């Protein structure tokens, strides 16, 4: 209706007082929705520095004991280690296979392309509990249950569609004549990919990799089903912690996770800005 220019809207001459009131109500509503989105995340951070073992306000004083607990608890340290083993490995597999698939798919149309695409996207669509139960039953039979390998490959499969879609989106504006030029000038297909195609699509590849990393890093349902206690990851440790007894150590872990994922997101937004 009206375009607000800065903090205050410039109402057109025909705006009635009711219109203006409506605009302010809408704006208050939107601020409330934003508060609803952010408040829980902001509310848990201070509690991780509380000297009380109750997760409630007002806090009696400040303390770093929960971070000390976190870094000295064998369960949490192992979970963090596992997360930083599983997520990067899954990301590597998802990125290599996903980028290769996207480059293949972008080369013109062929029969069965939409079916192929549907299959490659399937992990994104399938309910995660179905994936978890399917892998649980199948991996037990072939000896992949309770192994790092089993967990990594399922996480990679869940993350790969994000790489395929982001890289495909980057490749939409890609000029394939560059590849033809490179090939006709004597560069091999591999050299052409690494020296011509990859530099152009790099932002898309990195975005896709970050999505794949976040998918694995935040995955809990599959992990609950197919990982043994030795492969417990950070989200699974949080799940067990919340279910058993929620305490400020979980708030400390949550705070570190919020910082980490926010950093990931800012990198991604920065890349997106560069892509355009």
């Amino acid at each position, binding site marked *: 209706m009206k375009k607000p220019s800065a903090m205050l809207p410039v109402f057109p001459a025909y705006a009635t007082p009711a219109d203006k009131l409506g605009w302010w109500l809408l704006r208050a509503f939107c601020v409330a929705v934003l508060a609803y989105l952010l408040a829980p995340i902001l509310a848990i951070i201070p509690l991780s520095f509380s000297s009380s073992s109750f997760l409630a306000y007002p806090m009696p004083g400040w303390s770093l004991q929960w971070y000390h607990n976190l870094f000295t608890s064998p369960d949490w340290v192992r979970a963090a280690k596992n997360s930083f083993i599983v997520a990067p490995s899954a990301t590597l597999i998802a990125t290599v296979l996903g980028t290769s698939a996207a*480059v293949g798919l972008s080369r013109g149309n062929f029969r069965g392309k939409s079916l192929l695409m549907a299959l490659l996207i399937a992990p994104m669509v399938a*309910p995660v509990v*179905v*994936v978890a139960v399917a892998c649980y039953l199948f991996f037990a039979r072939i000896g992949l249950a309770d192994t790092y390998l089993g967990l990594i490959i399922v996480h990679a499969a869940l993350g790969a*569609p994000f790489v395929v879609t982001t890289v495909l989106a980057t490749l939409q504006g890609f000029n394939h004549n560059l590849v033809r030029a490179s090939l006709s000038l004597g560069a091999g297909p591999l050299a052409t990919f690494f020296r011509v195609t990859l530099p152009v699509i790099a932002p898309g590849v990195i975005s896709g990799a970050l999505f794949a990393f976040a998918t694995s890093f935040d995955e809990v349902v599959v992990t609950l089903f197919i990982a043994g206690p030795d492969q417990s990851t950070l989200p699974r440790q*949080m799940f067990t912690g919340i279910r058993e007894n929620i305490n400020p150590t979980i708030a400390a872990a949550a705070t570190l996770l*919020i910082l980490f994922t926010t950093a990931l*997101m800012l990198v991604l937004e920065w890349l997106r800005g560069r892509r355009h």
Partner: protein
Amino acid sequence: MLALPLLAFLLFTLLVPIGALLLRAVQNPEVAHALPRTAQALDGWDGKALPGALAYAAVAADLGSLPDSADAGALSRRLNRDAPGARSLIMTTFRAMPFAPGLSADEAQRKLLAIDARWNELAYWQAIANNTSTWTPNYLLAAVDLRRGANGAVDRMPPDERVFGTILLRTFGISAVVTLLCLALGYPLAWWLSTLPARRANVLMILVLVPFWTSILVRVAAWIVLLQREGLVNKALMGIGAIAEPLSLLFNRTGVVIAMVHILLPFMILPLYSVMKSVPGTYLRAAISLGSTPLAAFFRVYVPQTLPGIGAGGLLVFIMAIGYYVTPALLGGANDQMLSYYIAQYTNVDVNWGMACALGALLLAATLVLYAFYRKVVKAELSLS
């Protein structure tokens, strides 16, 4: 073909396991696998009187030749679901095996009855006879509260055994409420963001993206902190005098809906925002200048232009919501659990894989049907970037 490595990888890690899950939903392997001779001996048995001694001998031979107790365990669990008590009957008998070779059928019958007199009860024999075929529609039928009667006709479960209808309705009900709330909260916000200059919209969009990227477990933990009896929400409501007693907001439907809307709201806002960015504001101004009231212009001119965004966001949120497991499991009570919870329960606790797979197949089918609608609305692959 460069897409083949990924296809092969996905086939092995996901598609083949999911295919196996779908097969498992119509399989009934335990009895056929563990008691092949008994199945043969009971072929053609009318089920009205106890079977002959040959069937007893077949049971003894089958149980005596089972390779290990895991097979006996699977068999006993399977039969126990149809005939309570079968678990102990099978396991006691299995532990007394094998009989000396060369036993006559009558001797085998006598020895079986000496081990456990319940071999003289018809119900156990019927349970075995009903489950001798490897393929069964029973799990899928049970998943929608149907069963096969004695004559093979399909009818509804007796009222006290109709459990899954309630669970399905609850799953779709919670998802519908969450979707509508996401639309009610997300539509105004997306519209406001789309009217802002790009720079300010991007800054505010970060505020939407921070929760989007924050781990679901972190957000569930945060909601527990906020919604508990002494939590900030109750304190604030009591502080402004809205309530006198703390509300119970956790481990019930309210908590589940509040947290699910929080988690899924960005999936509504992002598609709405991208559609609204492409809707020119001039149509709305034209409608108003032609004499329409702003409200009427908004609903009759602007909203119809954003229908693709509403469809995409709504379907996306609904599809994701029906598969939710973690949030209801941690924030809900016993009456707030959704389909995924029961799939997990049947897999891990009840060890009834046929039922788990049938419910999984149902959830997968519902998701795929909805996704087909989504593709019709969006005409592009699912993408969050």
